[in-house]
């Protein structure tokens, strides 16, 4: 049904302004099946905005974005259906505050995909087990640590059996001691062959997990490179400056 040569995510010449601010400048980026692409760059470079345009939480002014070769529908049920096939993990977790952890994971499969209650629940428990928070299933999000919440949020996204996962700075809101547990889950996902687009500031993780690094600055893609080359001898001056500014800290 789906051609393996068609990229899962294909952004073509995307442009976006916030008022006078040019946040995305002629962005073209594709992510192939099973690929892990990591976007890095200074804050305000448009990384998060790009990530959010891919399931249309932000719109673009011009250009197009295709998911498995199909342009993102502009509205309605088709848009919702497309979104349901792309998992998204947010910086601030955004677990549903009025539901238990288990209910959070079951909610969308039940009410969006109309999956059978028992099956949805069993799969949810499996996923919570996989990310290591199964013992928290009956608590509400506020009772969990940030790291546990983010892992539960990953399980919630996985419950939709997505074609690809978007991670918008998934560890930026976490206390340092909790970053590792979330990155471990993400590393396992990558090893399982999940297609992933990750915006992050965790350079060691990026180097270890990425198939490709995309470096953005001032709304444009400045450099696309393999992790090894990018971190050892970046081609662009701006990437070199960015990396050395991190080392100076």
């Amino acid at each position: 049904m789906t051609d393996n040569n068609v990229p899962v995510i294909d952004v073509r010449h995307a442009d976006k302004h916030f008022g006078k601010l040019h946040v995305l400048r002629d962005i073209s980026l594709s992510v192939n099946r099973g690929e892990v692409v990591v976007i890095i760059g200074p804050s305000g470079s448009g990384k998060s905005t790009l990530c959010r345009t891919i399931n249309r939480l932000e719109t673009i002014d011009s250009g197009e974005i295709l998911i498995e070769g199909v342009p993102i529908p502009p509205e309605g049920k088709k848009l919702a259906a497309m979104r349901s096939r792309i998992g998204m993990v947010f910086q601030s977790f955004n677990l549903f505050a009025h539901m238990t952890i288990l209910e959070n994971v079951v909610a969308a499969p039940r009410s969006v995909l109309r999956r059978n209650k028992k099956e949805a629940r069993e799969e949810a428990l499996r996923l919570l087990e996989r990310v290591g928070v199964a013992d928290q299933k009956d608590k509400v999000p506020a009772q969990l640590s940030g790291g546990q919440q983010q892992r539960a949020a990953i399980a919630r996204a996985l419950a939709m059996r997505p074609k690809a996962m978007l991670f918008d700075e998934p560890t930026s809101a976490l206390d340092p001691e909790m970053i590792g547990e979330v990155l471990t889950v993400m590393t396992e996902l990558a090893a399982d062959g999940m297609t992933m687009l990750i915006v992050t500031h965790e350079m060691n993780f990026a180097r270890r997990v990425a198939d490709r690094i995309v470096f953005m600055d001032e709304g444009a893609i400045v450099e696309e490179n393999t992790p090894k080359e990018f971190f050892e001898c970046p081609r662009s001056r701006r990437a070199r400056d960015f990396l050395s500014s991190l080392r100076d800290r």
Partner: protein
Amino acid sequence: MKKPSIRDILYEPPGPKAQRRIRITTAAALLLIAGLVFLIIRQFAETGQLNARYWAFFGRGTTWRFLGEGLLSTVEAAVTGALISFAAGFVLMRGRLNRFPVIRFLSAAVIEFTRGVPTLLFIYFFFLAVPRMGWALSSFWKITLPCAVSACGVVAEALRSGVNAVPKGQREAALSLGFGEIRLFYKIIFPQAFRFVIPSLIAELVIVLKDTTFASVVSYADLMQNAKVLISNYDAMLSVYLVVAAIYILINCLLNKLSEYLARRMDRAAERGAA
């Protein structure tokens, strides 16, 4: 962990000087209150208000049954009015947040209108104007409907503030999972918004309950109306009003307790399963 009270948030813990000041002002205030109560009672005694004939009929079962019937009617009208205003307020809130500008504008206009017009004016409208338009209403609806209309705009705004208080991330997360607008609202946004506004809704119920005291205008036999009957029967204004005021205070205190109980229960639900 104990939740901090408002006082804990506003002030730091009192030191020895502040504690002394607190003790002194407390004692002074108690003295002042006692003095005032004494003056009031003396005034009553001098003007003969404590005379047994003004109070004796409260010893009869029939008096209390009569007041009880009035109270029941008051509660019926207030609860019906509040429920109607909650439903209408919900519809108006949905309209106010509608994607079509025309519906938004109309809803905003209705909300502003109902919030701006005094309840008594609505009562006159249902009492005098509506029957002339050919609709015969019972006295129950003549008091219930205007109270509901008068409250629905406030309810709509309370609900809207609740919806706006739900963090944006909740909506984004639901959208990213493929929720459509309708399910998103009813499964994710509204359940959270509703918890935020329960205290406001109960406060509005109290206001509706107090508005029903206008019932005597339309000769609906509520607590206030029956109190007026007692007053004319026994020629005892002060004692009856005092007792009736006490009943209203008691009910509204109970409603406030209910509000606190619901808020507490929700906090507990949020901590359900905590070790």
